[in-house]
């Protein structure tokens, strides 16, 4: 082929590097603008050091302190950036084009950090599990490496070991998630994906109770996650082949045909639509996997069920926020020129996701699986907003994510409270009469379920309304109708749980509701508060999301 025959192109690589080393310019990193991520990663590293240096007894407190402080500081940094107009007028691309600092990025980072803060509370909860050998224990295995039910495990339990490593793991994951929606090139995207995925794989495997299931969840999540990131990576390769660059701006320019001088040598690859379309589809698939869209959703129920519940809550809330952020940026920054190609496809995905999530959830018998399917259906609703491809689309998705993540977190936090001898009692039949036994817990969970169902005066309704409104304005009226139909189906199973909790007689051998410490209580309280505030007076947050609705390119 002719392109290869040109020697100048090939050798210029060598000559460039060899001849002018002094031309190499040190990268210009805007540390201030990257502060949120850096703080979290820094805290994570401190956490690792704590594991290495502090005695076992002191670790829990130190880790908790570090995590909370780190996340709070990072959140403060986000606020600082937002106040400094980095979300609007001063939006820019930092770190040599790798990371965008703009409205959506800051909004999502803020959301992720708040969610993580609440998640830390649930991670740190030590009042729920019965006291083992004089030690208060949390939801995580005493020693993850020990064989379940083996002697090593018993000893570890006796010695009062706890896996305080979960805090740095969580922080690393948060670090990755902060980068993910802000990533402005495909390399950063991929790295961020792996940075937050790998700790999650490990976290999944760390349940104290029902360890076999937990390990199985980890294996499934890991294998499928790796499988999907391979696809993502191959997609990145193809896009790189198409555009000759991995930065979003450059790819978008090529897509838009703004890069005029395509050298004949690159005619085979550069601007080859097949590469673009296949590559784009594969990258999309990688993101849709994280979102849990049908047909890439099948890991969700198993992993949500098997993982320790605090992890599930964190995963369900934060991962979704991060992944949708990345998806939005990809579709709105990289591929807007291609929207006539991806919109119909995404239509299909959104419809299938909404319907399948809602329909399959109808016959679920485990609370965590039920919530998993519900999260799939919600992914479909959010996709409807993504498809709107207008400014309202972005802001409505941002708002929805904020609303949804707190409801999810709260719901899973409630799940941790309902326990019997075998740990958490997640089978729905055991929840019969829960609302009568513990009216407060029942009522709180009912509030979350109603928010999921999108009943007015809850955040779920405001979010759903925003998303559907954007979709209708973006010309996706049919999606609204499908969304409404699947909402109706979804309402059925949320209501089924409420029926079970309030209208069934409590079983004598039913689970008890553990009285949580202030940590989980505050997590749940925050969930309820956000749910109601965003439901009753959402205007401020809608404005916030609206202001944050513009991507930098």
């Amino acid at each position, binding site marked *: 082929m002719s392109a290869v025959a040109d020697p100048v192109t090939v050798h210029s690589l060598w000559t460039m590097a060899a001849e002018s080393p002094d031309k190499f310019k040190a990268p210009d990193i805007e540390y201030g603008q990257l502060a949120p991520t850096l703080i979290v990663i820094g805290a994570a590293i401190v956490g690792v050091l704590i594991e290495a240096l502090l005695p076992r007894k002191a670790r829990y407190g130190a880790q908790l302190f570090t995590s909370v402080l780190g996340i709070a500081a990072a959140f403060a940094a986000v606020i600082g950036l937002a106040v400094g107009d980095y979300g609007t007028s001063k939006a820019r691309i930092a770190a040599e084009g790798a990371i965008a600092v703009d409205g959506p990025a800051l909004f999502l980072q803020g959301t992720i950090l708040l969610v993580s803060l609440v998640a830390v509370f649930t991670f740190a909860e030590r009042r729920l599990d019965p006291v083992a050998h004089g030690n208060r224990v949390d939801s995580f295995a005493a020693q993850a490496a020990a064989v379940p039910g083996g002697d090593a495990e018993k000893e570890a339990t006796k010695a009062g070991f706890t896996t305080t490593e979960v805090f740095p793991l969580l922080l690393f994951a948060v670090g990755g998630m902060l980068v993910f929606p802000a990533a402005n090139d495909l390399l950063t995207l991929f790295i961020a994906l792996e940075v937050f995925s790998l700790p999650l794989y490990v976290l999944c495997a760390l349940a104290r109770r029902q360890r076999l299931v937990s390990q199985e969840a980890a294996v499934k999540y890991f294998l499928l996650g790796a499988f999907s990131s391979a696809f993502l990576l191959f997609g990145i390769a193809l896009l790189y082949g198409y555009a000759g660059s991995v930065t979003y701006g450059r790819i978008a320019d090529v897509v838009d045909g703004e890069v005029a001088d395509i050298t004949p040598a690159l005619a085979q690859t550069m601007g080859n639509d097949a590469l673009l379309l296949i590559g784009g589809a594969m990258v999309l698939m990688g993101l849709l996997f994280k979102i849990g869209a049908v047909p890439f959703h099948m890991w969700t129920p198993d992993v949500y069920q098997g993982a320790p519940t605090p992890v599930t809550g964190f995963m369900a809330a934060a991962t979704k926020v991060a992944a949708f952020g990345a998806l939005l940026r990809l579709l709105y920054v990289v591929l807007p020129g291609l929207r006539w190609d991806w919109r119909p496809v995404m239509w299909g995905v959104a419809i299938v996701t909404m319907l399948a999530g809602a329909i399959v959830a109808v016959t679920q018998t485990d609370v965590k699986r039920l919530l998993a399917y519900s999260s799939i259906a919600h992914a479909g609703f959010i996709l409807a907003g993504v498809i709107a491809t207008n400014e309202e689309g972005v802001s409505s998705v941002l708002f929805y994510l904020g609303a949804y993540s707190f409801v999810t977190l709260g719901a899973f936090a409630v799940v941790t409270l309902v326990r019997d001898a075998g740990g958490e009692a997640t089978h729905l039949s055991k929840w019969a009469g829960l609302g009568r*036994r513990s009216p407060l817990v029942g009522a709180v969970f009912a509030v979350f379920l109603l928010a999921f169902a999108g009943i007015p005066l809850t955040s779920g309704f405001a979010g759903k309304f925003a998303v559907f409104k954007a979709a209708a304005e973006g010309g996706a009226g049919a999606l609204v109708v499908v969304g409404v139909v699947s909402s109706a189906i979804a309402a059925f199973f949320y209501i089924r749980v409420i*029926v079970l909790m309030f209208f069934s007689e409590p079983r004598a051998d039913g689970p008890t509701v553990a009285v949580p410490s202030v940590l989980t209580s505050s997590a749940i309280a925050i969930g309820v508060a956000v749910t109601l505030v965003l439901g009753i007076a959402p205007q401020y947050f809608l404005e916030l999301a609206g202001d944050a609705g513009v991507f930098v390119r």
Partner: protein
Amino acid sequence: MSFPLLTATAVAPAVGAVAVAAVPAAQRTLAKWVALLFSLATLVLAAVALVRFDPDSEDPYQLTESHAWIADFGVRYELGVDGIGVVLVGLTALLVPFVVLAGWHDADPPAGAPDAATQSVTHGRWRPTQGFFALILMVEAMVILSFAATDVFLFYVFFEAMLIPMYFLIGGFGDRAGHKNEQETATQRSYAAVKFLLYNLAGGLIMLAAVIGLYAVTADDLGSGTFSLQQIAEARASGELSISTNTERLLFLGFFFAFAVKAPLWPLHTWLPNAMGESTAPVAVLITAVVDKVGTFAMLRYCLHLFPEASKWATPVILVLAVISILYGALLAVGQRDIKRLVAYASISHFGFIILGIFAMTSQGQSGATLYMVNHGISTAALMLVAGFLISRRGSRLIADYGGVQKVAPVLAGTFLIGGLATLSLPGLAPFISEFLVLVGTFSRYPAIGIIATVGIVLAALYVLVLYQRTMTGPVKAGVENMPDLRARELTVVVPLIALLVFLGVYPKPVTEMIDPAVDRTLSVVDKQDPKPDVPVQDVEAAK
């Protein structure tokens, strides 16, 4: 700024709900009194609103309040009432104290020794009595707000939100009478509650799609979307906002579907018999006399005001469905074995009349329909509450279990009969006037439909009298012999309702005065005039 009267009227029961919920578990009686007190306070506020309302005013909505709420959705917290709204607010506030009083013992723990196991696992934290009354007050607050809202979105919010407390009322506090065993009762009750919720939620969600559509349409034409009824009306009048025929029809159908479920209109009615059958009588009254009125009210205010052309387009079909409802509901009522289900089907028949009146698009029809909402509320409350007293005495809902009650409890039987006679629209009692107005209004435009609907009055007599005959007359059945007559509390509930039925039957002017201007305005919105009589005798009269 003037005192936000409507908000206060809605907030009073909401505060009451919180207050009742906060009453400690053991002090059930206190909770009841608190509930009654707040419902009476609401009644006072509603009465003030009725007095302050000026029927002769030119403003379409009075007692208005307007505050920013969710600017991003184009939503404002806008309240205001026309004559129809204020009357229905009054009806709601009026009926709830009776509902509370009638349900005085409905949420008490079962009389027998409570199941020890249940008692221990619930730790006494379960407070059904407090919950029951708090939920009733919640429903009241939301219903009042949906009558008073003049913003489509605001209305929708409460239209949907009221389902939740209603759902708990149905599913959580069912009628203990009626089924073979506890298990069956619980199953049937939660089936009824779920059916209620799903039907209404499905209707509401379809309406949601239409609400969003309305926003998109207004946003297209006006620059920014709005839900304000007045703003939309003004924009339409000035031609700023024009909705294409097809869009208008689709949006209309979305709205109408939700209201038709709520009202309920055949064939979307099947949730009502279950819901009314399984819930306690006061809750059944709340459903049919208060909550369902939001549906018919909304047809009048939202369907006709927002989509006049589409309303006219759909009229023939709706009229046919309404007539089917009338006859079908009545015939099914005749075929029922369960007292409460019978009343439920009778209500379906009556809702058919209301919808008929609304869509006949004549001033008599619509005045009649509005009046019907009020009268049906009172008459069904009277009949259903007495039926509830009856059922609570015998512990059965089956008609066949009764007989000869008038012998042992003549006052109960008498009040039951009066409730029944009101239901069959006996002249002299309030429902007659509204039913006749609806029929006249329909007949003057659609004679055939008017005549068929008139047959409904025979069927109404049939189901009421058959019910009365089987339960109250004849030899005293076993299980009825020692039935006590109405107690003081029960009389307090029934007598004022009956007095109102008689009063409004003889002198409905206070109500018609309120609603008449609003009806005229509605008709001018849909641009319909009453058909003129062949020989306008009144002109001759006037000349004399």
